[in-house]
């Protein structure tokens, strides 16, 4: 009998045609996530089996809790036989260690060559356990412990509790998206939610040195690092936005500063998306939260791009977003007090209902295409991975 981890895929199994893509991607993601551990992974269309070689079960399970596409994590025991007598002995061995008064046995047999039905097997094992142990009884509605038995091709598996996984789809199975990462509370949550649905995100961050500081950039890198726990290695595109922002500030009536700035960001993000082969833009806009997030503003801003713009937190209240950010661990970093390019050059009275025609007219006042071209040409790409890159390893 060998102890091992069994993964249930959940929602994936409903994807009939793409199932291989989904499971292969999940396998790849899990392998990457567990690269620090010595594990052996086997899988088929129904289950994934992870053998942990150095007895680091608890740590491996904690790590698996950060992988999208896993519905359930199970600690199970594998027996290399379908022989019922052997199975009974092993179940008795495992059950001996447990304290309970009521139980239920749930048998599944994916191997239909076995003559007995699942129900027959369950009742036979149940009878055996009742005979071997005193003071226990069967309760099929509300048992203290559930004994699961799965009979597969040549092996059977016994397990008791299951641990809930993150759910969602394996990252990457739905393609790529560009996440507009500002450093605030909302955009990391938006990123997390899109990653959950299988979108591999690349971040884009607009910096305006010297108006914004290196700390502000570091903060965004840290947010990307937290997201990379779920997203895997994460590319972060850093766009130097200073020239564009200064040009807007100097030439455009101030009530339109934010609207036009956002339109420029959208344009740049959309170009980066097509270069990265990303299908969507993702951002943390929430309806009505600020002047640039009224419906009219969203329309005026959204018009400059053709890609779908996904706004996972559009309908969340601020407090709901904050709770989410705390849960995924980005909140503490998001509230560090460094100015980003959205908080500098803020007009006193931004327009609440901007008109896209007006925007277009104002935009003729600056050579924005040329400025955008330059910004993209010189943009910096950082690859961020979960393991905090510790440059100080030799020093500390």
């Amino acid at each position, binding site marked *: 009998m060998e102890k091992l981890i069994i993964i249930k895929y959940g929602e994936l199994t409903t994807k009939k045609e793409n199932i291989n893509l989904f499971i292969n991607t999940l396998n790849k993601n899990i392998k990457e996530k567990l690269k620090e551990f010595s594990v052996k992974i086997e899988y088929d269309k129904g289950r994934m089996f992870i053998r942990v070689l150095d007895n680091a079960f608890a740590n491996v399970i904690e790590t698996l809790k950060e992988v999208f596409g896993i519905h359930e994590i199970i600690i199970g025991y594998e027996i290399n036989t379908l022989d019922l007598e052997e199975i009974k002995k092993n179940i008795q061995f495992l059950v001996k260690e447990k304290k309970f008064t009521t139980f239920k046995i749930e048998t599944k047999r994916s191997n239909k060559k076995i003559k007995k039905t699942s129900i027959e097997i369950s009742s036979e094992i149940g009878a055996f356990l009742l005979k071997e142990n005193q003071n226990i009884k069967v309760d099929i509605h509300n048992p203290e412990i559930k004994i699961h038995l799965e009979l597969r091709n040549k092996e059977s598996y016994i397990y008791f509790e299951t641990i809930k996984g993150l759910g969602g789809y394996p990252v990457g199975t739905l393609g790529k998206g560009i996440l507009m990462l500002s450093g605030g509370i909302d955009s990391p949550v938006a990123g997390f939610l899109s990653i959950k649905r299988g979108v591999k995100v690349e971040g884009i961050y607009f910096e305006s040195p010297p108006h914004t500081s290196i700390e502000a950039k570091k903060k965004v890198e840290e947010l990307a690092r937290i997201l990379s726990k779920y997203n895997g290695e994460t590319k972060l595109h850093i766009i130097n936005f200073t020239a564009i922002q200064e040009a807007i500030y100097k030439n455009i009536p101030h009530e339109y500063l934010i609207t036009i700035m956002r339109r420029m960001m959208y344009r740049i993000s959309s170009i980066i998306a097509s270069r990265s082969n990303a299908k969507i833009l993702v951002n943390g806009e929430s309806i009505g939260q600020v002047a640039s997030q009224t419906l009219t503003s969203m329309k005026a801003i959204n018009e400059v791009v053709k890609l779908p713009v996904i706004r996972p937190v559009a309908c969340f209240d601020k407090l709901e977003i904050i709770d989410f950010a705390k849960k995924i661990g980005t909140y503490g970093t998001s509230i560090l007090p460094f100015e980003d390019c959205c908080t500098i050059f803020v007009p006193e009275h931004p327009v609440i209902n901007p008109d896209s025609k007006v925007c277009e007219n104002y935009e003729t006042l600056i050579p924005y295409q040329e400025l955008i071209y330059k910004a993209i040409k010189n943009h910096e790409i950082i690859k961020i991975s979960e393991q905090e890159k510790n440059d100080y390893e030799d*020093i500390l």
Partner: protein
Amino acid sequence: MIYLDYSATTPISFDVLDSYNKVSKEFIGNPNSLHSLGSKAKDLISNATKQISELLNVLEQEIIYTSGATESNNMALIGVAKAYKRYGNHIIVSKLEHPSIYKICEYLESVGFKISYVDCDQEGLIDFEDLKRKVKPETILVSICAVNSEMGIRQPLKMIRQIIKKENNNIIFHSDMTQGLGKIPLNVHDTDLASFSIHKVYGPKGIGLLYKSSKIKLEPIIYGSSKENDIRPGTPAVALIAAASKAIRLNIHDLDRKETFIRKLNEKIVKELAHFEGVKINQTKYSIPHILNMSLPHIKPETFLHAMEEYEIYLGTNTACSSGEISNSIMAVYKDKERAATSIRISLSYLTTIDEINRFLNCFELIYKRLSALTYE
């Protein structure tokens, strides 16, 4: 050379020294500067602090860098006295403290605080009944070291904390853990404040730590302009901090194995010295083996120390900081003035070899016989 004074200070580990050098050369910015050289240095400090906080199992903001344990002790005792004086003016310390604690107490007495000295029993353990008696409603602070520097007596801090807090829950508990770090497992959560010195764990001299629980407050004892750390302002000692973090990391593990080895050395010395008439081993069942104190009747400790030095063997008298005086700790435990006036201290390390101990024992015999003969003439 045979170095047997590891409790006075330790030789810096070359790994730690490398870090010190590297940081001094490559991190030239002032961590308080806004430019990138400043943030680079600041980032290093925050990584170093994070590592220390994980090793000591505390929060990052609970670590204060000082110049050493003496400063940490000052900051703790005076800082608490100033911050909590409206709640009382009474402070309790043990009779087994490092001299710096007594000097601070003298100062505090001069500005109106009352100090009580709690007794210890024959084994050097804090006298719990005496401690209970001494705790008063106006007591604001108790300071008891984790490991005594002269005889290596280890105190049950957790129990002491329980006793104090039961008598008066508002009391702040400080412990000078200088002689414990790197030798025994320490739980700083037994205390509210704990002092450490890095040169006792194969790090550079000039840096120490004060653990300060986030639940208590301290008044600063020095003033400056730094916003980041107003309790201890000034430009952070970047290279020393990095070296401290590394020294702690390298020396906080594997304590059991090291102690077993050191205990063997200690037992060997004790066994051999039993042959010398008059030599009194000042060691109780609560002493850690790293520190071995003994009294040599009628021999002036300094004379003995210098005689050993002629053979390039280096040991200690009392603590390095108070050579020449009688030992408070030995007096407190054995109540014997002669014994307290003639003590020498051998302190051992995992770096000590059996061969060194053999050579020490040979020289000991030679010198002890020579000096004893002189004394009796």
